[in-house]
């Protein structure tokens, strides 16, 4: 189970991940694109191909509105 904080809104959600799932899988589970979101673990960005375990992550939407 991963606890995800979504920025800039600040909403918190929990996502069930399988063994070996990557950052991109996490974003897919949330219905988000890896081109418009950055995943931070402990404040450091993580490439979307990286495996992700249990714990807390921050997902930042990088797009600004119009």
């Amino acid at each position, binding site marked *: 189970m991963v606890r995800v904080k979504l920025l800039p809104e600040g909403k918190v959600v929990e996502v069930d991940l399988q063994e070996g799932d990557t950052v991109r899988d996490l974003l897919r589970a949330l219905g988000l*694109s890896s*081109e418009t979101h950055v995943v931070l673990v402990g404040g450091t960005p*993580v*490439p979307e191909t990286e495996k992700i375990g249990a714990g807390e992550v921050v997902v930042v939407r*990088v*797009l*600004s*509105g*119009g």
Partner: protein
Amino acid sequence: MAKCSICGKPAIAYVPYQRRYYCAEHFADHVLSKVRRTLRKYRLVGGGDRVLAAVSGGKDSAVLLDVLARLKREFGYQLAALHIDLGIGEYSVESRRAVESLVRDLGVPLIVFPVKEALGYSIPEMAMRLRRPACSVCGMVKRYIYNAFGVEGRAKVATGHNADDIMSFALKGFITQDLSSIPKLAPRTPGIEGLAAERIRPLYSVYEKESYLYALVRGLPHYHQECPHARLTSLEFRIKEMINRLEEERPGLKLGFLSKHAKNANQYPRERWEPSPCSSCGLLSSGGECSFCRTTRRLRGEPLGRSVREYARAQLERLGWM
């Protein structure tokens, strides 16, 4: 754990269109070299130029100012920052604070244009009185101020438009069939002597995600909140999301678009009006009084173009740019 394709340190980002991983340092180098290539390829700057960077306080203009400060010596231009304080409550207060700390870190001289003090009304007040959407008033006022400072200082005005802004703007122009708007955000828009300052867009090929990561790894001060008037339901925002779904499936799609877009800029229909000097302030107009002078006349009983130009001259004098 993925490793940087250059030095082998832990990677912080993957760039799908290059199939490369980067550590923080080499990611920053990657973005900087994209900007350097844009400046060279489209001849955006040269020795002896003056560049006035429009900084809002957001991430993109923080990146713009940082890269322009780093490349200043290499290209031989002079650099200053221009911030417009729009008077949009907390958002503007925090944005200005971020800009002040950014220019301090980078050692770049700053000019601030305070809209409420100089024009008598903040942007939301103007919008209310004019019964117009805040974003359209804001866009018009900003364009005028950037242009006035650029013309008075004989400077090129650099803005922080990134690849996603440019592609979504062009696609919006196609969808609404406003074809003459499509090439407006080209890498450069030439100036018109005495009427309009040259516009340059150094982040033309920098993806919005790259801009975010660059600001993060460089620790650039910027304000994270969006303008309260921005809408996530706006057509431009929805187009950005759509483009990036495609980019995820087809890495490099945006880059391909951008290089063709720059090449085809003069293939689109031109606007029908001929540029002429505003009858009040002398800057760019589509005939008669410019929209800034007309609007300020409605608000204040007199056109304020001339007083903005005077204000610009006084501020530029301080920089030694007059």
